[in-house]
């Protein structure tokens, strides 16, 4: 092999460069997001349950918010009768954020982790968070 040493050196440098993001990122990226439900409103609840059970909310909240939006804005229907029979005012600002008053510690945790950038907050106001 002509210039074997140089080629090997080049290959090593190349592989090192290409692999560097993975090497430097080792052990950093897999910390699971921990959304906090530690707000005064939720603490005061006897039974800590959202509009629907936690597992449903985890996977369906984005679809639910879309449906709520369409129902309120397009059809003028504002009350949501949940599967457990309780009724809620369908409002991101006035219902969701009343309990989840900690957007940066709740919403943003997972959204940042998965790289989701929902545009809700371009218009909807978030509760002021005490630091």
């Amino acid at each position: 092999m002509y210039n074997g040493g140089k080629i090997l050196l080049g290959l090593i440098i190349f592989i090192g460069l290409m692999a560097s993001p993975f090497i430097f990122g080792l052990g950093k990226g897999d910390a699971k997001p921990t959304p906090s439900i530690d707000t005064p409103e939720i603490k005061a609840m006897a039974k800590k349950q959202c509009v629907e059970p936690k597992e449903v909310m985890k996977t369906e909240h984005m679809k639910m918010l879309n449906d709520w939006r369409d129902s309120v804005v397009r059809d003028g229907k504002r009350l949501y009768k949940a599967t457990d029979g309780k009724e809620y005012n369908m409002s991101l600002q006035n219902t969701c954020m009343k309990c989840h008053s900690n957007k940066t510690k709740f919403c943003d945790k997972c959204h940042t982790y998965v790289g989701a950038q929902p545009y809700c907050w371009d218009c909807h106001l978030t509760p002021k968070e005490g630091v």
Partner: protein
Amino acid sequence: MKIERREFLKLAGLSAIFGLGGTAIAGGAKQIAEYKNDPKELKGKRWGLVIDMDKFASDADVQKMSEICHTIHNVPTIANPMREVKWIWTEQFPNVFPELEDKFLAEHYHHKPVLTLCNHCENPPCVRVCPTKATFKRADGIVMMDMHRCIGCRFCMAGCPYGARSLNWIDPRPFLDPKKINPEFPTRMKGVVEKCTLCYERIAVGQPPACAEASNGAIVFGDLEDPKSEIRKILATHYTIRRKPELGTRPSVYYVIGGNKDARKGA
């Protein structure tokens, strides 16, 4: 085990019946979330307003209507008239009713401020031209905006003959007074068109529009299709005008201008 064709068909048929019946029972018992109207909601077939400009005690009282509306709806105050956003505001009489302008018109009418807002037309041109159905007419006659759908094309602004719509040319949030922001109502973002929504959010909980409530009777809100409503009584007993009726938009906002009070004053 040997099974005859006849036996097999019998079994298959029975299990099909049980299977179908079983799912139907289980499906019926399952609770499904549903969307409902608020029982407090005001019900109407075609909401409208009558604005009696002479019932406002002063021009300051007229201005107050804008302030109240713009505060509760987080409408920004932008000084540059090229960028401003407005839901309800005043124009001089000849600009609101250009076809009524006349050089012999009583002098004070030439500068009389008249409240203007979205007319919630029965035949709204803005709805017709909207390519995304972001603006639409509700069953109760309100011409509504769905900000989530608006792409900021401004066709509606070209279509509206009353200039009732404003585009957010810039991010409106820095132009809101942080002390007065209403945390229960959203703001808008850059690139969407907004206008008066006849306080749909108040009607939904049984309250009249904020301007009508704060106007001391100068603005009357009601159902134009209900012959017994107060608004219809006023329409039946007063001479009222609408803006640019010749265009066929059929506005739902009526004006009483220069009623008896003016004639008595001899103004």
